[in-house]
């Protein structure tokens, strides 16, 4: 009856790490600016696509990924400076539409330059699967999980030890007070967009060897990333990562034990039921959000 459970778990965690990394990007921006960035999935796409393109252009893989990630971080900063900062404190729903517009734009540019094809990236350390309990694990999955954990750990250090991190948390708590204390809220906003560009792109680059990439992978990832955020409780980075993993595992178990046709529906039904019972997500505080 439980045949395949270890495999489902491994698959779910791998896919879930994708969602989790996207969700972390959402959280980053949401915490400093209160914006839900619907272009978050595009950062993930940029990470993957740029890595592919740079690799094809002749850069060695690690360098290609590094450059791709930096470019995406830059794209994040640019986005904040160009379209978010000028509108100031607009209504949240307007900002959401702006981010939707940006995501259409980014997708369009990538499509026009590099086409509509799907691309693959070589795995970091071979494709020979490892056996683990009853499951077969791709080495790349281990890379993904390890890097996700590394990123989480680094974020924790960043927020608790560095002045920038603390300043960002201050913006998250009370923007006005942060501004009064001499923190440049605008700089922090730009920084958060850069960071989430960075995080998204890291996710895109390390996942592409498993999942392949194309100009339009961002839509679905953005959607699932947002769901992961909500599942974990908006604003809580740990919740976002956990939400992603849970969502991935739910889908995988849904496909394995219920019906592969309804696996996404299954995951969303669980999410809805959870919200009905706990309206601010698994690890969300009692305080509802600012929107």
């Amino acid at each position, binding site marked *: 009856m439980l045949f395949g459970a270890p495999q489902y778990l491994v698959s779910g965690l791998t896919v879930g790490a994708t969602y989790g990394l996207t969700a972390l990007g959402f959280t980053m921006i949401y915490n400093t600016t209160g914006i*839900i960035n619907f272009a978050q999935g595009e950062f993930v796409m940029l990470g993957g696509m740029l890595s592919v393109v740079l690799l094809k252009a002749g850069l060695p893989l690690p360098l290609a990924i590094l450059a791709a990630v930096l470019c995406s971080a830059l794209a994040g900063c640019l986005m904040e400076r160009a*379209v978010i900062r*000028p*509108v100031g404190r*607009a*209504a*949240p*729903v*307007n*900002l*959401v*539409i*702006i981010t*939707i*517009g*940006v*995501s*259409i*734009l*980014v*997708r*369009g*540019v990538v*499509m*026009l330059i590099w086409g509509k094809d799907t691309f693959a990236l070589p795995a970091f350390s071979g494709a020979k699967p490892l056996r683990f309990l009853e499951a077969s694990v791709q080495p790349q999955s281990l890379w993904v999980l390890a890097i996700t954990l590394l990123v989480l750990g680094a974020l924790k250090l960043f927020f608790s030890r560095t002045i920038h991190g603390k300043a960002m948390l201050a913006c998250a708590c009370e923007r006005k007070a942060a501004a009064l204390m001499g923190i440049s809220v605008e700089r922090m906003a730009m920084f958060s967009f850069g960071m989430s560009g960075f995080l998204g792109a890291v996710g895109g680059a390390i996942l592409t060897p498993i999942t392949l990439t194309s100009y339009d992978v961002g839509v679905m990832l953005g*959607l699932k990333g*947002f*769901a992961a955020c*909500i599942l974990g409780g*908006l604003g809580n980075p740990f919740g976002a990562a956990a939400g992603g993993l849970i969502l991935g595992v739910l889908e995988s178990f849904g496909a394995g034990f219920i019906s592969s*046709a*309804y696996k*996404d*529906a299954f995951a*969303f*039904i669980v*999410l*809805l039921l959870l*919200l*009905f019972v706990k*309206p*601010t*997500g698994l690890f969300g505080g009692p305080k*509802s*959000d*600012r*929107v």
Partner: protein
Amino acid sequence: MAVSARSLQLAVFAGLLAAAPLALPNDYYINILILCCFNALIVMGLNLLMGYAGQVSLGHAAFFGLAAYTTAFVTATAGLPVWAGVPAGIAVSALVAWLIAVPTLKLQGNYLAMATLGFGIIVSIVFNEAVNITGGPSGFVGIPRLKLLGYAFTSDTAYYYLAAGVLWLATLVSRRIIDSRTGRALRAIHVSEQAAQAMGVDIARHKRFVFVLSAVYAGVAGTLYAHHLTFVAPSSFGFNFSVQLITMVVLGGMASLWGAVAGAFFLTSLPEFLRVFEEMDILIYGAMLVACMMFMPSGLVGGLGKLAAWLKRKLTANPTPGQKPGQKPGLKADSRG
């Protein structure tokens, strides 16, 4: 005085709708007008929900689809007449909305967005997978054209006038609801649920009412759509369409009936105008979304209103020294969304 101004607006709108086909260079564009009417209908309902009552829904395409598939099933599969299918479609859409309204509308802000989004996705998965009923991803073929009271709406022009008539009626209904105690209660909920309740407004009931009402609007549009196209496929009712609907609401102008109409007509016909740019059209579409929201935060209607006011000021008085030349009127506008 306000009342008469509103009647005048409605009369002008009726006139515009009636005259629109005459201004078209050929028959093809009437189909776009019909689609504009359908979308305007959904967007108007969504605007009552979002713009007036302040409750976001990222799953409204589902109600549109539920009604379309229901009438398709009732008329094509079960073989019942169209006059049975249309109310059945609207009723299913309303019923589903009524069922999910209570648990869903307790949620706030982004959590509400997620719940409605999830609902929309679940429904679209069902459209895709319940192949025996819906025909699956390749669609539902063979839906009869609309025939009411013995009149078959075979020509597109006739169908347009039907759609436009329904849209006008929906506008009237919306107007009358907004200008009543119910409308005031909804607007109150948008700003402060605490205060609305303290005034004796049963917010759960009102939220459910407006949610069901918006589902009815979407349902009407869905049934008309199914009998116009005579074909429905799940891809028309997915997440993308829900997002487009929201975009129409916001771009047109939150809490404005004319905004809903303007947003729907503008965004539905925009791709037609962008075709000249060929592959670049998607870039221009995205850029326009961003630009509109940056420079007209209160939407097309608000933006035009501000522009008109600004022009009037320019024309009636000499430019005041304080006014910088070339300053965009919309830039300073704040949205009260």
